């Protein structure tokens, strides 16, 4: 029996028994919509984890100096200019982006009353400025000892959106980047509770330059040797590569400060380098070469992302299995429906055999009907699941209070989820109809036609 004819025949039968199939398909619709909902939610959460909380491009690794260990005869290796040059020569390495810690402590005295009038005026021009912001800024009093490091500007060229991220001419504010995670925590809790302006792409250009004192400490004067350096810093963007608990400056600025305050050696030692492979599939070879050089690879970020991702996957897998179990139960219902229909259609099947249907044709007709019921059920289930996702998404965004890393969308819609939903419905329906189809194919036409 040709596919076109089979399709016509199956279509006729479905129309005839649509009520039975609609009831049988309800379970499929419910199961598949749950499947889509949970997969969509898991996908959305994993996206937030991998892009917002623990982001790391697949072709990048973080190389760090090896810590010396007692049982390690090879000893440690420092990350200096020679090591960077060697890293650049590894086959498959596309770029090396070094970063360097500021070797001395630094402080920020953020005193609202000391902010220059032109900077206050700048705040007052912020879009959507709230009167209480100006009051809060004027009354703001925060004395921080702050960590700082320098980063290769090429690594963050897409993050410094509101200024040039490079060592500035003397007297100009130093451009800085803040960690996206830190900013997220500040925006979702601190700024709200203190009526302070949030840090976002709209307001960053209006942020005031802040005083920064290098070689200064509120914690221990013993760490401070030599002169203090007074400067101003201005926020030019946020980056996943910025220091989580501090500020990130252009690499040349930190190198200069280290040279001036701690000498040439401190200006040539790096604490980390982001290494970019030409492609992610070459990364394992690059990692081997890095380790062979006596350097280490910091996988903590990646491992954290994987752990959280795994936990999310595990929970969602549980829910997905429950939804698939629902589809499985629906498939049993499908089987019952087909057994009933075949019992009602015994004579008809006998007639079809009399006019030339093979056993295979009869089996194909029943399985075709099941596949079509599954297909319809799957499409409706996917549509219902997506509608539920959209609805919950809108409600969650509107009704849930702000919290760190609250996403704009809680759900993801990978193509395989949509295709998988329909495919699962078809597979379960066909599996459910397999036994009835075999029974129909095995009916003896002479018995069925005579009503035996």
């Amino acid at each position, binding site marked *: *029996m040709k596919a076109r004819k089979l399709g016509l025949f199956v279509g006729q039968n479905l129309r005839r028994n649509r009520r039975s199939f609609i009831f049988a398909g309800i379970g499929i619709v419910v199961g598949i919509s749950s499947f889509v909902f949970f997969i969509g939610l898991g996908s959305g959460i994993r996206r937030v984890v991998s892009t917002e909380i623990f982001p790391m491009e697949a072709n990048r690794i973080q190389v760090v100096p090896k810590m010396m260990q007692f049982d390690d005869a090879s000893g440690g290796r420092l990350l200096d200019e020679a090591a960077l040059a060697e890293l650049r020569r590894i086959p498959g390495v596309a770029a090396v982006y070094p970063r360097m810690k500021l070797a001395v402590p630094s402080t920020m005295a953020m005193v609202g009353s000391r902010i220059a009038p032109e900077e206050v005026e700048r705040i007052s021009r912020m879009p959507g400025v709230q009167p209480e912001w100006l009051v809060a800024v004027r009354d703001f009093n925060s004395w921080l000892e702050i960590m700082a490091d320098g980063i290769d500007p090429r690594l963050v060229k897409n993050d410094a959106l509101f200024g040039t991220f490079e060592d500035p001419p003397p007297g100009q504010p130093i451009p800085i980047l803040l960690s996206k995670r830190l900013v997220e925590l500040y925006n979702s809790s601190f700024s709200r509770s203190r009526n302070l302006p949030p840090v976002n792409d709209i307001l960053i250009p209006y942020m005031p330059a802040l005083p920064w004192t290098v070689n200064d400490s509120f914690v221990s004067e013993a760490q401070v040797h030599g002169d203090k350096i007074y400067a101003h810093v201005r926020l030019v963007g946020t980056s996943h590569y910025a220091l989580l608990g501090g500020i990130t400056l252009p690499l040349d600025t930190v190198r200069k400060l280290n040279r001036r305050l701690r000498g040439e050696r401190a200006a040539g030692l790096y604490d980390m380098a982001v290494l970019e492979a030409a492609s992610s599939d070459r990364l394992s070879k690059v990692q081997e070469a890095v380790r062979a050089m006596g350097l280490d690879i910091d996988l903590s970020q990646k491992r954290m992302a994987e752990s959280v991702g795994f936990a999310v996957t595990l929970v969602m897998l549980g829910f997905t299995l429950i939804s698939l179990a629902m589809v499985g139960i629906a498939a049993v219902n499908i089987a019952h429906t087909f057994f009933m229909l075949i019992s009602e259609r015994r*004579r*008809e099947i006998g007639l079809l055999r009399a*006019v*030339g249907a093979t056993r295979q044709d009869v089996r194909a007709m029943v399985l075709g009907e099941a596949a079509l019921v599954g297909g319809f059920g799957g499409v409706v289930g996917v549509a219902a699941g997506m509608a539920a996702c959209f609805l919950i998404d809108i409600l969650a965004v509107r009704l849930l209070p702000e919290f760190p890393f609250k996403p704009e969308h809680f759900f993801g819609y990978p193509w395989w989820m949509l295709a998988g939903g329909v495919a699962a419905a078809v597979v379960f329906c066909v599996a459910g109809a397999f036994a009835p189809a075999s029974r129909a194919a095995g009916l*003896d*036409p002479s018995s069925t036609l005579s009503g035996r």
Partner: protein
Amino acid sequence: MALKGINLEIAEGAFVKVVGTSGSGKTTLLNIIGGLDTGYSGTAMVAGLNLRSMSDRELSRFRNETVGFVFQHFHLLDHLDALQNVTLGSFFSRGEEAEPEERAEQVLVRVGLKDKLHSLPGQLSGGQKQRVAIARALFNRPRLILADEPTGNLDTRTSGQIIGLFESLNKEDGITVVAVTHEDHLFRRATAGIRLEDGRMVEAGPA
């Protein structure tokens, strides 16, 4: 009902009536000839084909291309109109009928249902239903029509018309007809007759 010791030859172009009491094996004989029943020992040769040695696929093709069945209870599909019922065999044909609906219309006209092409079985009388069933049997141009009690559900007048139709198909189209019946007297123009009793053939020869 099991048949015992049946040795029977039916000439091409014959019109054979098979008579006997209920349970004598008439339908079983018809099902064997039509390739619907395969659970027997012995040999059944139809149109030069040994049905016993054929696979399910081959038997299905044989039923589709060589045989047309007509049943006492018509066995029309209630959700299909006359035209669709008649084209049922085309779904399983190996060859593609160029215009199945045209062919169906042609055979429906042939059986006198020109005005009932799109009537559902529920809108037809018993005689008309049986005519649709005959048209369905004729659709694939069979060499043999096997009719199982074709007048069993019809009144005498309608039975006469249906039998007349079989006679005309046999005479004008050269189709071999084997008809099982209780109403021996209605098949006056049959060219041969077979009588079965308890699965045995007790009489065979010219009618």
